[in-house]
């Protein structure tokens, strides 16, 4: 009895010893030396693996950071400045605070109700619908409403407005990772700076057709008239290919262009009061926006900020 146990112990012990020696040499031979910093950096990243940075995931981003030694050209959009500061601290480099961004939809719902020219009953995929035809409203540039962006968003920040047929971005959840921008076959979604107090103005149309043609398919289309370009005090608006575009780095969110726009193609977000279109003179209309440039008056506005404003 005891002898049997003894034999088993010895045999297993010898086998164990042989394997231990083999494993030791294998481990020495195939040792992968990895910078422990990578683990530390990966630890502070959000771990969403959204791919918004252009890398295969958070781990790959961490590897790239450590290999590079600084954060030049690398930015984790979901993490924002907080994560950038932590990573910079680990790497021992400086970081610049980036402007926070958010996804905006550059299309006004036009294919609702009677304005719909056709009914699409094919595969629910914008990429597929885009390869087939112009869209239910007839605009060859606008939103197709099949929700590729909704499916692409890993943060649940985009929802399809069933009534209007266009996507709506939830600013609190949007991390500006850019997945929706890539998913949209028509580049309707763009990442724009959130703007001071989250207030921003943009042209919600990308129709490059000539004015009359664009109006045929959508009442809210930009017709490229150039009124906004003329009225802009900071030269942020330019009309190219029959469509206006507001440079968000220059825009001061004065909303003068929005007053001027004859088709309502210019949209704003998070302003306390809707723009007053009744008064055509630029002065009174510009007033609610102007105060933002001065710190003193901005606090006054803040009190009137409605609940839908973030922060």
């Amino acid at each position, binding site marked *: 009895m005891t002898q049997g146990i003894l034999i088993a112990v010895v045999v297993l012990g010898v086998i164990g010893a042989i394997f231990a020696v083999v494993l030791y040499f294998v481990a020495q031979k195939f040792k992968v030396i990895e910078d422990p910093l990578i683990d530390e950096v990966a630890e502070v990243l959000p771990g969403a693996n959204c791919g918004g940075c252009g890398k295969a995931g958070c781990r790959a981003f961490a590897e790239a950071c450590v290999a590079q030694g600084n954060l030049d050209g690398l930015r984790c959009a979901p993490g924002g400045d907080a994560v950038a500061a932590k990573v910079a601290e680990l790497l021992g480099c400086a970081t610049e605070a980036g402007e926070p961004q958010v996804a905006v939809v550059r299309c006004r719902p036009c294919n609702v109700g009677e304005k719909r*020219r*056709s009914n699409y*009953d*094919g*595969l629910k*995929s914008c*990429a*597929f619908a885009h*390869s*087939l*035809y*112009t*869209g239910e409203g*007839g605009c*060859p540039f606008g939103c197709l409403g099949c929700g590729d962006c909704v499916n692409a968003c890993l943060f649940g920040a985009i929802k399809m407005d069933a009534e209007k047929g266009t996507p709506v971005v939830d600013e609190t959840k949007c991390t500006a990772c850019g997945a929706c921008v890539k998913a949209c076959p028509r580049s309707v979604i763009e990442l724009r700076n959130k703007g001071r107090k989250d207030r921003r103005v943009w042209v919600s149309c990308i129709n490059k*057709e000539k004015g009359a043609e664009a109006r045929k398919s959508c009442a809210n289309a930009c017709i490229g008239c150039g009124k906004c370009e003329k009225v802009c005090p900071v030269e942020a608006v330019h009309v190219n290919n029959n469509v206006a575009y507001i440079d968000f780095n220059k825009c001061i969110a004065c909303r003068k262009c929005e007053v001027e726009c004859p088709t309502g193609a210019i949209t704003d977000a998070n302003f306390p009061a809707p723009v007053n279109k009744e008064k055509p003179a630029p002065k009174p209309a510009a007033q609610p926006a102007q105060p933002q440039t001065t710190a003193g008056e901005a606090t006054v506005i803040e009190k009137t900020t409605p609940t839908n404003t973030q922060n």
Partner: protein
Amino acid sequence: MKTFKMGGVHPEENKISNDAVIEQMPLPSQVVVLMNQHLGAPATPVVAKGDKVKVGQLIGEAQAFMCANVHSPVSGTVTKIDTCKDIAGIAKPAIYINVEGDEWVDTIDRTPEIKRECNLEPKEIVAKLKEMGIVGLGGATFPAHIKYSVPEGKKAEYLIINAVECEPYLTSDYRVMMEHAEEICIGVSILRKALGVPNAYIGIENNKPVPISVMTEMSKNFQGIVVEPLKVKYPQGAEKQLINAITGRKVPSGKLPIDVGCVVSNVGTAFSVYEAIQKNKPLIENILTVTGKKIPSQHNYQVRIGITYNDIIKHAIGALPETTGKVISGGPMMGKAIVNLDAPTTKGASSVLVMDEAEARRNPETNCIRCGKCANACPMGLEPYLFSALVKNGRIEEAQKHNILDCIECGCCFFSCPANKPLTDEIRLGKNRVRAMMAAKR
């Protein structure tokens, strides 16, 4: 009886416009001639605003390799050169012509007499096909001069004429065979000469007994034309399936019919080849079926290109029935739903199919039950259910490995699916993704 080996379905035939004799569609006051009448690059306009043009005059010249000439279908004045929205609503370059009278170019022989002799050399025939802007009328509108210039190192052994017309509803090929059998046989002889092949095979499905007997009778007067009746099965009219049915050969994945020594042309193309070579008439008209179960009358028209679908519908049936669900250009299996009825017809247009709401509606999609009917129905031996899952999950490379690009988009999988999954749509999306991926790698 011969047929292709793999897969296939048999949809309801609905050939209700078989007996409608070909009528001439009257000219409208304006036509719009798209420069994209064919597969490939658009033709370049060679007329200017204000120019007077005659019927058959060259107005768009083929400058790229994959391109075909476009000729004026009417006589009149060019009013503008601009863009026009096609049936999908996408703007394409086009020439607008105001119709004034009906004056033809002098070289075109408009006499009804049939010319049988053709003394042109093969190279001259191909050059003339190019000059006359002949394209394949089976649906793909592939420029004929490219198809009949066999690349060096390859040899054509079979000329196959596609008169299968396996798509439900369509009857334009049926009518052409009934009314122009002799012209078709002359056209086939010309194409046979251009290729230098001993025999041409005309494949006709067995559900058209009258055209089979008419064509068989007529082919006896010609050397080397064999009429081949085929068992009824969709998609017999697809190029690769027809080659398989008639010759037993299989076109390998990623190869062209010429790689197995075959050239396939539509019967309508053979007729337009006759008109081009023997009568100097460019491709400015084609035969178009106006059909549908719920419309008051069925028609087959000879239509000049550039007439809008609205004009055709107005002339044929007055107005669309209120219950219309879809208007389709082409057959119900592979045709395209028309989004913009103001779009002009093109060389490849074969029908205006008006479908009732109930008939056009897709049934709600349910879950895949792994029955494998789609794989059984696929004439290319693919696995549609697999592509559906792969494409949905973004596994594009795997889809490519399973030969997704071999799909001919015939719609058999969708037709046979008991769960009503839009398999063909998913595969087409997958094909687009694979092509985009390949382009990005290059």
